[in-house]
């Protein structure tokens, strides 16, 4: 059986050489920012493009009487809290275009590395909204666990012999 498994494994590896070696197989030198941006250009065509609907000929839902129901605007006229939030330089797509339009200078990659702040774990501030309630939930949960551990409700000792 192990022989068969090895054969299947070989078949899998042989069937995928074009995939496996598509990248040349091994370290490649770090590319310049110009190469990098050119390679990723197709990526931005649709995933991040909010205007993709217009390009594909789809009508703008806000033009229709019921359009607002499908938009992120509140139909009751309330302000959209997310609209005012810090979004960097606007849409990712727009920023990306600006970056490529600005030229492909050397060292651009390093420049953006400095721009991207590394997301790390942070200590929770005791001033966070609802911190006291969160502490309460944690304490109650801990007490339930402690209670169950002491009382062992339902766990019982009534072992029965299987044989």
């Amino acid at each position, binding site marked *: *059986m192990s022989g068969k*498994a090895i054969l299947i*494994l070989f078949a*899998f590896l042989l069937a*995928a050489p074009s*995939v*496996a*070696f*598509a990248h*040349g*197989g091994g370290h*490649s030198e*770090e590319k310049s920012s110009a*190469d*990098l941006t050119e390679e*990723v250009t197709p*990526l931005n065509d*649709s*995933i*991040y493009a*909010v205007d*993709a*609907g217009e390009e594909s000929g789809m009508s703008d839902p806000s033009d229709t009487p019921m359009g607002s129901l499908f938009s992120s605007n509140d139909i009751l006229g309330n302000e959209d*809290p*997310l609209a005012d*939030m*810090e*979004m*960097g330089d606007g*849409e*990712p797509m727009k920023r*990306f275009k600006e970056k490529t339009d600005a030229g492909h200078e050397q060292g651009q990659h390093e420049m*953006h*590395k400095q*721009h*991207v*702040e590394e*997301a790390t*774990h*942070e*200590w*929770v501030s005791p001033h966070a*909204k*609802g*911190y006291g309630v*969160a502490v309460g*939930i*944690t304490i109650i949960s*801990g007490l339930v*666990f402690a209670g*169950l*551990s002491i009382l*062992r*409700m*339902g766990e*019982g000792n*009534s*072992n*029965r*012999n299987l044989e």
Partner: protein
Amino acid sequence: MSGLQKILKERLGIHLLDYEVPDHSNSIKYSLGGMTMTSFGVLVISGILLAQFFNPTPERANSSVHFLMDQVYMGWFLRGIHFWAGEILTVTLVLHMIRVFYTASYKKPREVNWLIGVGLFGLMINLMFTGTVLKWDQEGYEALDHFLWVAEKFGILGVPLTENFSPGIPLLSRVYMAHISLLPILTIMLLGLHLFYIKYHKLSAKPDGTDTGKSITFAQHTAYLRRAGAGVFTFICLLALTISPPLGNVPIMGLEVTKPPWQFVWIYALENIWVPSLIVAPFLIGFCLVSVPFIDRSPETDPKKRPIAMLVLWSTIILFTALILWGKFTTMTHSM
């Protein structure tokens, strides 16, 4: 038995939980699966609540998570619970798989349940991956970028996983659909099957023949799992209360500057050696896991009498630990 108990027993069929299981069921080793289920339950409930505040469009996703963290009452705690439940689930799931392998519980007649477990493992990885993408910061963007690179290499087969499949629909929205709908539904279905086969084949005996032969009822085992679940939830709450999950700002496209979460960092290390590892490694690991019950067919379950299996197990643990550590401390030397 009180009248109420009798009514409940008759109407709800609770007496069906009175079947016998070995007494070693009530131990941490044999309750790791139950603990994983607790974390999954916490993930489902917190996920439903999180979904009320998440905007799955590329231009709003990241800011909606920031809004949740900063402006929504206890939003930070909710997201913390969701995040840490995922972390705990990873640990208990891997430990559960190690226990099953160590005790040879995948052997006849439980091969099918091992395969279902491998399927659940794959689904959990996909859930973690899609969850990483959804926060739509630099880390999330780069994760999706890598995924698209892999999908492209599969040609026509990979098209359904790319934006070309449904032009005009942001891929992030489809990732969201997978995360909150498709993957959880599949997980719950497989989980049901997994539990059914545990009941059908019964919990495996101790591998070294030290079974006492005594049993407890399944209801007693669920009482133990309830206590373990309360412990797991308390631990999740404590972590959520003290350490906030990472969250960056909107991504800058075309850059590859972050490292993936620790669950995926081993593949980052492999990618650093050989880029196509991104494609080969997941399939190879999946293939090896699926092969386990078909390669190791001897009835022997005692770890001391299974030196090759133990060698494979410890080598795998050491290899992945080394890759995770290396991935954490190494610097990327290539760009895709």
